[in-house]
């Protein structure tokens, strides 16, 4: 039975900041107003076990490209490298969220889409961090999964 505990929005923002300042930009992300459609690149990772949830990262293509070039320390990045970098971002945030929640549980490999990811119908948003970087929106969300809800499509 999944326990209905969630990280706080403050926990989530702190985790995202830690990952961001370590690998993307030492300058912190800024709080931003929530957007209905934050961008066209999405990444998700799923936690199953004593706690069941999903962590998503959404950002515009320009931000995904900039994240990849920063993480690789190169001037240009391919779409494959962008997917790798954004996937690694959600993997790090997801792994740290998992570590705050009841165990034992398993973390899935990240999935990345150039577009939006459709979450399962049983997924309920638990908390979110709406942030801005160089004028671009970065949205990170944690969703609780009902016991019969499967992964993203």
């Amino acid at each position, binding site marked *: 039975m999944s326990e209905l505990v969630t990280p706080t929005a403050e926990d989530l923002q702190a985790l995202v900041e830690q*990952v961001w300042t*370590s690998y993307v930009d030492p300058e912190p992300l800024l709080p931003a107003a929530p957007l209905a459609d934050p961008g066209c690149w999405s990444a998700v990772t799923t936690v199953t076990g004593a706690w069941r949830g999903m962590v998503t990262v959404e950002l515009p293509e320009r931000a995904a490209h900039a994240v990849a070039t920063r993480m690789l320390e190169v001037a240009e990045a391919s779409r494959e*490298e962008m997917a*790798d970098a954004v996937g*690694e971002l959600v*993997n790090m945030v997801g*792994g*740290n969220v998992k570590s705050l929640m009841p165990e034992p549980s398993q*973390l899935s*490999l990240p999935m990345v889409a150039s577009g939006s990811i459709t979450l399962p119908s049983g997924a309920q948003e638990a908390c979110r961090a709406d942030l801005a970087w160089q004028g671009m929106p970065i949205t990170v969300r944690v969703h609780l999964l009902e016991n019969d809800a499967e992964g993203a499509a």
Partner: protein
Amino acid sequence: MKILIADDSRVMRQIVVRTLRQAGHGSHEIVEAENGRQLCEMALAERPDLILSDWNMPEMNGIDALDQLRGSGSAIPFGFVTSEGSPEMRERAEAAGALFLIAKPFTPEAFGDALGLAGITP
């Protein structure tokens, strides 16, 4: 010294190499694997002095790779570099024979300390 880095993310393998350099460990020979199966093959073929492995990888994950290595009699020093740094994961890693677990995001100091545990000096 030769270090085998296993991670399915090329971006993360590159960050690990860069962080090793920042920790003063830039002179070691580096070989790379994309999953646990490759890790096991390369551990036999390359005989590294240290293996740094992600936990969560396709084909074969890091903990299964470590089990396979230890089951085959290999005692190569092994450490995890993973986004999952909870006490439970650290206990599982230690019980399986890992020397250390470095949680992402990490610092050069974390690598310096961990490599010291494996007896590897800059």
